[in-house]
């Protein structure tokens, strides 16, 4: 079964839209930090914080070559998360939570 420490780190890393976008981008192949930062209207130091969170989670690795730092996706880190039955259960529990919240919320105004 999945290692919950790894899961926590990966979920935390992916809880941010900028970091998800970076992971999407790295799905195409490795890229330098400045290439990755370019689409986001944020300063390089702010962007580097996101890179460090992703690196700490193990989702990406980075390597310096000359003046550029290259980031590479490590998809194997997704495997504990992607343990298929764990993922399917989370999917269905999430759906059931949302359905329950939705229908009970909608019923509340009525006695």
């Amino acid at each position, binding site marked *: 079964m999945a290692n919950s420490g790894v899961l926590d780190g*990966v*979920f935390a890393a*992916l*809880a941010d*839209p900028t970091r*998800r976008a970076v*992971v*999407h981008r*790295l*799905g*195409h192949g490795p890229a330098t930090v400045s290439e990755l930062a370019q689409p986001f209207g944020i300063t390089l130091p702010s962007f580097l914080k996101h890179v460090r969170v992703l690196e700490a989670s193990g989702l990406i690795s980075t390597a310096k070559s000359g003046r550029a730092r290259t980031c590479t*996706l490590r*998809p*194997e880190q*997704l*495997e504990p*998360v*992607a343990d*298929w*039955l764990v*993922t*399917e*259960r*989370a*999917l*269905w*529990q*999430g*759906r*059931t*939570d*949302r*359905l*329950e*919240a*939705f*229908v*009970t919320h*909608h*019923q509340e105004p009525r006695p």
Partner: protein
Amino acid sequence: MNPDLDLTIERVIRAPRTAVWDAWTDPRLLEQWWTPAPTSTRVDVLDPRPGGGFVTRMSEDGHTFVPHTDCAFLAVDEGSRLVFTNAIDSTWRPAPPAPVHMTAEVRLRDHPDGTEYLVTVRHGDPASRARHQELGFFDGWGSVTEALARLTEAGALR
């Protein structure tokens, strides 16, 4: 039920059975809970009768929608049971496992506190998924998008 392949979710939902049924079968209502915030859902087809389609797209930014659900209903009992599968798509074309074939059965029963809600999801043999993985499930753009869509979904859980 095979504990290695299947999962069940059982819950009493404090709302009338008709409300739960409507939330599943009215496209405008399904859109409000099918995927977790901040993603949004658009229902393209929701035809709850045997052979009917179930097609949704999802979006992370509210502008760009990507395919999400493409299933076919197998059995439908008005007000009490929905069974659908992703083993064939909404046009009855045999579908690639994504990431594993499943048949989901949602059952609703009246309960003194509302609705007894029971989901049974029967999955295909994970060996077929393992083969899928060997063939490069995690390689490339599409698979990462898929993995992330699933992670985003799973992230709705605490």
